[in-house]
């Protein structure tokens, strides 16, 4: 039973870190954050792709 409790505790801590720290503070969906419609997202990515250039 001690093993079960330890594993549940690890799972809960891990899920908390993943969903309440990483997701909220570090991994917001960039396109969803900045644009509301699919048209806006398509326009943004289209521009990104056609303008993208690496530093020489």
């Amino acid at each position, binding site marked *: 039973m001690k*093993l079960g409790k*330890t*594993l*549940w505790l*690890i*799972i809960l801590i*891990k*899920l908390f*870190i*993943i969903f309440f720290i*990483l*997701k909220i503070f*570090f*991994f*917001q*969906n*960039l*396109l*969803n954050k900045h644009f509301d419609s*699919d048209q806006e*997202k*398509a*326009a943004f*990515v*289209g521009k*990104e*792709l*056609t*303008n*993208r*250039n*690496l*530093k*020489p």
Partner: protein
Amino acid sequence: MENIDPSLVDWSRAQFALTAIYHWLFVPLTLGLGIIVSVMETFYYKTGNPEWKRITQFWMKLFGINFAIGVATGIILEFEFGTNWSNYSWFVGDIFGAPLAIEGIMAFFMESTFIAVMFFGWNKVSKGFHLASTWLTVFGATISALWILVANAWMQFPDGMHFNPETVRNEMVDFWAVLFSPVAMNKFSHTVTSSWVLGSAFVIGVSAWFMLKKREQSLSTKSIRIAAVFGLTGALLAAITGDGSARQVALHQPMKLAVMEGLYKGSNPAGLVLIGFLNPEKGTYDDDTNPFLFKLQIPGLLSLMANRELHSFVPGITDLINGGFPVEDTNGIMIQALSAEEKMKRGKIAVQSLASFRTAHETGSDSLAAIHRARLEANYGQFGYGFIKDKKELIPNVPITFYTFHLMVLLGLFFILFFAISGILIHKDLFHKWKGMLWLSVLSVPLAYLCSECGWIVAEVGRQPWVIQDIMPACAAVSAVSTGSVQTTFFLFAILFTVLLVAELSILFRQISKGPDPEH
């Protein structure tokens, strides 16, 4: 023109690689050990012998620890798609989304429902229902792997889709072509069977440790008997499916094959390097330095693997960059391979056509838009080359790909022998008497992990610079975020993953050391 710092591309790659490699520590043990546990429980169901129940419950506990620590680590990869690979996420559209959604809805829920019965259902449900739940948990986990690997295979061989310049997305036109692509089928079967190898090595390694400690002789003997047969089956199937994968790589990713073999200049016939040491002095692909300090190769075998013909030409890195060698097109007609420069030229036309199409479309010039759309479609096969500045970017890291590939193959051969010898020794009741074999068995556990991770590295490093083969390189796929933010999360993950790994190993070792529950 937007400038993307090259170090952003490298850090984004490193962040993804760290997460995927960590996630991949758990998946193969779940897939491999899961089947072994199911077989053990089937013996219990068939014989009613309580010893089989005890054996099953012991290995199931280790399976549970691995599952608990590993669960949800793959979700982080999906977060990274949205944040660090947003261009890619949008560009792949429903092709990548559909398999992942099916994975989430069908396989994951199936897995999580039955795993609850598997762990908590002993003595609460019938023996038959419990056995079915154990098998269905493993089946669900394997189906989960199928969908993930289908999505990955599409990136290695994009098929069954059409690019829509209005939405800037690849849209799926043939679900079955995506699902049953030969790359996906080979990748799935090779990955799953290699996971059986890892699961079997784990069982034999832990059992051998018990034998070294002179504990649990009966449990260990019975476990090794199952694992040796299952492991040998997995290792042989992994060799066969590995050969199938090599054929697919030759067809769709010839540069990856050339780099895997350190083959700079193509030859007819081409030999397969069995053991080789690369020359660190080798600078560029076109210098005259011998790429090898030493190599031992099997003549003609690479030609046979790549083209199914012993006397056939396999292009090297230089040939693929310069083009001009005969190659079969998608309609089976022999043509001259394009040079990298020509592909880059066509790629730039494709990218420019996309820009021109979107401008024409926005201003309502339908006839102009149609012309640009046609030009884009004619050159879309080389779209990704439009982002390549220097043809040398098209060559993946040779030493990493070469050494990991050969290490994987050598370890694969080792495991065929290892399981065969284990099976013979356990059959003759000699396994526990050979101390060297017992220690080798314990060592085989980290070797199996090394082999498995090498497979991931070969597949992913070997296909650089492509995120989607020929269509999108990593430099076009990454989000324009600050390099510092990617570095921050990289180190955050490094700490988190290390802590979780230490936790898993300490719980796992403690549980192994404690052994199975006492016999009643």
